[in-house]
């Protein structure tokens, strides 16, 4: 399946882009997506980040489906 990955703040800067398409094996979870993304980016940068799936906070074990939007969120500081 394919998911859309969104990157923000220092993750976006490090990757040089804010969005990418990520092919994943079937039955992939957020953790799978993170592992594939780190391989793609060539570094273990995701440690400490939160994750949202389809605009909602998710956990590493959240299951993904075709077309999901997976956002990697560095610690936030709104307001």
């Amino acid at each position, binding site marked *: 399946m394919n998911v859309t990955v969104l990157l923000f703040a220092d993750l976006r800067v490090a990757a040089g882009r804010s969005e990418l398409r990520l092919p994943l094996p079937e039955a992939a979870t957020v953790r799978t997506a993170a592992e594939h993304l780190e391989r793609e980016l060539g570094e273990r940068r995701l440690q400490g980040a939160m994750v949202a799936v389809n605009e909602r*906070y998710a956990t590493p074990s959240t299951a993904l489906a075709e077309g999901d939007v997976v956002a990697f969120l560095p610690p936030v500081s709104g307001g």
Partner: protein
Amino acid sequence: MSGPAAAAGHRFEVVRDAIDVAELLREASAPAWGAVASFLGSVRSPNRGAQVEHIDYEGYEAMMRAEMARLADEVGSGRDLGRCLIVHRLGRLRPGEISLAVVVASPHRADALLACQELVEGLKARLPVWKFEVGEAGGAYVAGRADAGPTL
């Protein structure tokens, strides 16, 4: 935006231009609501001892609006909230400019005051927003919080 929140005339917005606080207060004003509590957050300078030139606010806009609506539903549960208005500004803001406005109207003062306080705390913890603060010594991302969900 969730059903109950939208139906109540609430407002959850992400904007790029100056927030019109007077307009928000007008929207929160009605004879049925005797109490309006509000919070305005702005770019502070000096911050941690250093002058701030500006802050660049970056946000995940669709999720910001979704979190605002979810939080308003949570905070409004069991309370009599007449209207709940949340506006967050993104882009480049100078010291003194308002980045966040939260306005809550209720028939009851405790509902308005406590809901406003809980909304502000929740928004600070949960809104997917990042600040790049620029001062005399250069720029850096402001250290954030990872309270809203498990981290990798």
